[in-house]
């Protein structure tokens, strides 16, 4: 496949994006970021040459877009294989069901569900306050820099949220922010931010995190307290019969409601078993929620294709900024 060699940084990045088509969107974002760092530095290091002259030699130094794309794909596969701790998957259905307790992802996901309430409140307040203040201040001159600041902080927060989600669920999220291109002017950059779909989906994600966080938190807390108290019930009864639960502990269970449970000898062990099953199901649910949430976050926070730099910026390489 011999296409025309790129003659500008934008062209190079566009070709690289095409070469990486179908790869993980987070990987594409990282690859574009790294390449842009190199290419801009290379152009800046050769002030006597034009951008197209520098790009002409790039295939022999940095590598052509297809070579670089290959390097990212290969390294990603190797790192993933090296980092993934091989986990023995039990064969039997029963083993698979209870094997969840050996999966660290389930625990972190459960923790994530609890944490979501806190982060949800913070994100919601940040997004609502930022949006309304930007809107309110837009009639004044400070409205514009305020909006810029709001969006910039929002992007940093979304990157951090992505790192958190990758750590929890193992779903690949960007490790580098999206670079907007310093070639753009101030107003062009604001225009690009307003037009960028991701700006709005990020804000929508932040706002949606409050109801989602409440939902996760309630499920996690309710599930944990019900299942753990069921599990604890036979233990507590046994301890109280042995007289280890303190004086008068037997009376607690004598008066415990409903009577038909505490009167029969069978009900309490059954409840205990039900608690274990419930707890195991909750762990499965937590892991599933973690995966689903990672998919949701990825669709909202990571651009499907990185934003296209406007064609007009092509000539305006930031040479002057040295």
């Amino acid at each position, binding site marked *: 496949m011999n296409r025309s060699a790129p003659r500008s940084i934008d062209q190079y990045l566009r070709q690289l994006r095409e070469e990486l088509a179908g790869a993980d969107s987070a990987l594409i974002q*990282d*690859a574009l*970021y*790294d*390449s*842009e*760092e*190199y*290419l*801009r*530095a*290379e*152009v*800046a*290091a050769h002030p006597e040459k034009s951008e197209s002259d520098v790009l002409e030699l790039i295939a*022999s*130094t*940095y*590598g052509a877009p297809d*070579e*670089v794309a290959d*390097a*990212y794909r*290969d*390294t*990603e596969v*190797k*790192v993933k294989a*090296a*980092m993934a701790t091989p986990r023995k998957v039990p064969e039997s259905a029963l083993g698979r069901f209870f094997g969840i307790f050996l999966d660290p992802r389930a625990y972190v996901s459960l923790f994530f569900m609890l944490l979501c309430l806190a982060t949800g409140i913070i994100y919601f307040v940040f997004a609502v306050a930022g949006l309304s203040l930007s809107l309110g201040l837009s009639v004044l001159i400070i409205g514009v820099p305020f909006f810029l600041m709001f969006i910039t902080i929002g992007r940093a927060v979304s990157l951090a949220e992505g790192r958190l989600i990758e750590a929890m669920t193992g779903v690949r999220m960007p*490790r*580098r*922010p999206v*670079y907007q291109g*310093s070639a753009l002017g101030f107003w062009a950059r604001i225009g690009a931010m307003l037009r960028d779909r991701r700006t709005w989906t990020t804000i929508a994600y932040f706002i949606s995190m409050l109801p989602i966080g409440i939902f996760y938190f309630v499920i996690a807390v309710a599930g944990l307290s019900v299942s753990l108290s069921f599990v604890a019930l036979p233990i507590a009864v046994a301890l109280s019969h042995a007289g280890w639960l303190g004086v008068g502990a037997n009376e607690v269970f004598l008066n415990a409601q409903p009577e038909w449970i505490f009167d029969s000898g069978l009900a309490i062990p059954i409840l205990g078993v039900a608690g274990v099953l419930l707890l195991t199901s909750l762990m499965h649910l937590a892991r599933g929620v973690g995966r689903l949430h990672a998919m949701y976050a990825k669709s909202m926070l990571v651009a499907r294709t990185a934003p296209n730099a406007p064609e007009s910026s092509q000539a305006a390489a*930031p040479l002057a*900024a*040295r």
Partner: protein
Amino acid sequence: MEDSNGRKFQKDLNGGLVGLVLLAVLAQSDHDLYGYEIAKRLANANEGTSIFKEGTIYPVLRALSAGNLLTSRIVPSYSGPPRRYYRITEQGRAVLAEWQLIWRDTRDFVDRFTETEILSIGPSS
């Protein structure tokens, strides 16, 4: 055909070697380096012959960093996106020492066969 054979062999060789070289460069440096700087150091040492393309070091840097062999920090830059400066960690130095031993053994082993090979072919061709 010859050329693509050579290219593939070089690529296979580079798989682990790029990581070793990057660790060594960062271990020798007395200050933190960013991607472009490292690429240029390697290119200068290379003197024209391209053992590997500079674009291939970035993903490896990221992989080493993910493996806690390097730490990094971000510094804003005028010429482009913010730069990521890398520094080798203690764990990275330990791994480097281990890799160096492996590399030395491997090189000696390979040399033992290939050097005589060249000598025997050399005069006849």
